[in-house]
């Protein structure tokens, strides 16, 4: 019995040790995660990164001795972001933009779409067939070289996704059968839901503003 107890304790210690090691990961070690033998042994989770960001913000608020460092990092960040925005804008305005894809939020579900895709939306209230609609909840737009991620949504001035309602039908019959043995409980539920089929006509991206 004592042996068993000891074994249990040992496993518990191991578990705790593993948790601790996973908590105290630094950002540099995260960069190396996913390469070589350590890819699966180390979970890519970092709490120290979060704490670091928090500390930075505290410094900013208190205007303590490390204010100069923060301002320097901010200016470099702004510079970097401007460079990225410029690069993306040149890509958008060039003819070599290529096919775009987007993640849209329709009727409670998120779908990844490109032009000429068709998607099924399970909803009862929707415009009639043939109407062209604009999908306004856009979470992400990507091309071959860049990706714009909304926080949580991209603004209407940046993206314009148009779709056509091509079909409004019913789903096939879905059966849900409940049975409890020896209790005389049998429930059969048959259900058809209303479905709308959308065709994505166009995805357009306008150049970003600073």
């Amino acid at each position, binding site marked *: 019995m004592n042996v068993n107890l000891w074994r249990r304790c040992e496993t518990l210690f191991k578990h705790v040790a593993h948790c601790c090691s996973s908590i105290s990961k630094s950002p540099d070690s995260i960069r190396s995660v996913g390469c070589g033998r350590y890819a699966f042994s180390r979970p890519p989770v970092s709490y120290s990164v979060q704490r670091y960001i928090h500390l930075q913000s505290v410094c900013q608020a208190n205007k303590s001795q490390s204010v100069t460092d923060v301002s320097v990092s901010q200016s470099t960040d702004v510079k970097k972001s401007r460079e990225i925005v410029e690069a993306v804008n040149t890509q958008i305005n060039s003819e070599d933009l290529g096919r775009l894809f987007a993640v849209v939020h329709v009727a409670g579900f998120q779908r990844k779409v490109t032009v000429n895709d068709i998607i099924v939306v399970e909803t009862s209230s929707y415009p009639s*067939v043939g109407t062209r609609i604009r999908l306004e909840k856009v979470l992400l737009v990507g091309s071959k070289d860049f990706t714009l991620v909304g926080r949580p949504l991209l603004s209407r001035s940046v993206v314009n996704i148009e779709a056509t309602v091509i079909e409004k039908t019913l789903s*096939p019959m879905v059966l849900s059968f409940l049975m409890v043995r020896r209790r005389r409980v049998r429930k059969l539920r048959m259900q058809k839901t209303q479905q709308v089929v959308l065709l994505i006509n166009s995805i357009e991206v306008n150049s970003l503003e600073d």
Partner: protein
Amino acid sequence: MSSRSLPATRLINVGQNGVGRYVCQLARITLRFCKHQASSRGMRDFVENYLVDFARSNPNVVVYVKPHRHRGASIQADYLNGNSHKTRVSKMDMDDICKWIELARTRSGVDIVRKTKNFQTHSPSIQGVWHPFLFKDPSVNLKTFPDSEYGRFEVNEVTATERILQLAERMKQLELEKGEGKSEKDGESV
């Protein structure tokens, strides 16, 4: 019966509908009913009140009205892809029949069966498939593991031992300064 055992198809867009303009896929609708029976009452009401409006608003749909003596009412919808679907609407009131006819009009004519996926795309990936070595330094390829650099354990914050060492150093410095000050003072006094 579970849905896995039932036949399934992919999502189909008949004739690339909506890529250019939308074309109503319903070609012909046949309304069958009896002129006398009570079960065809709803259908007769529909024919009296709404049928002309329906035909006017959908000029591309051919509407047949066929009275059948002592038969139940039904709707037969023929689609451009050659499929036809029949719905029995006897003992239904006019509102329900309106809904069934609207369903026949808005459908594409594809059989209603289970779909494997509720989306259809011809370009599943635009940025390429992600793998764990994407955007990684290619020098990793030539490394032999375990590697001291990649296996390095780093802590971003100052550890307790480091802090104690720092404090000890500071104390040493302070003591040195004190000692220097004393010696200087001694020198002055001497």
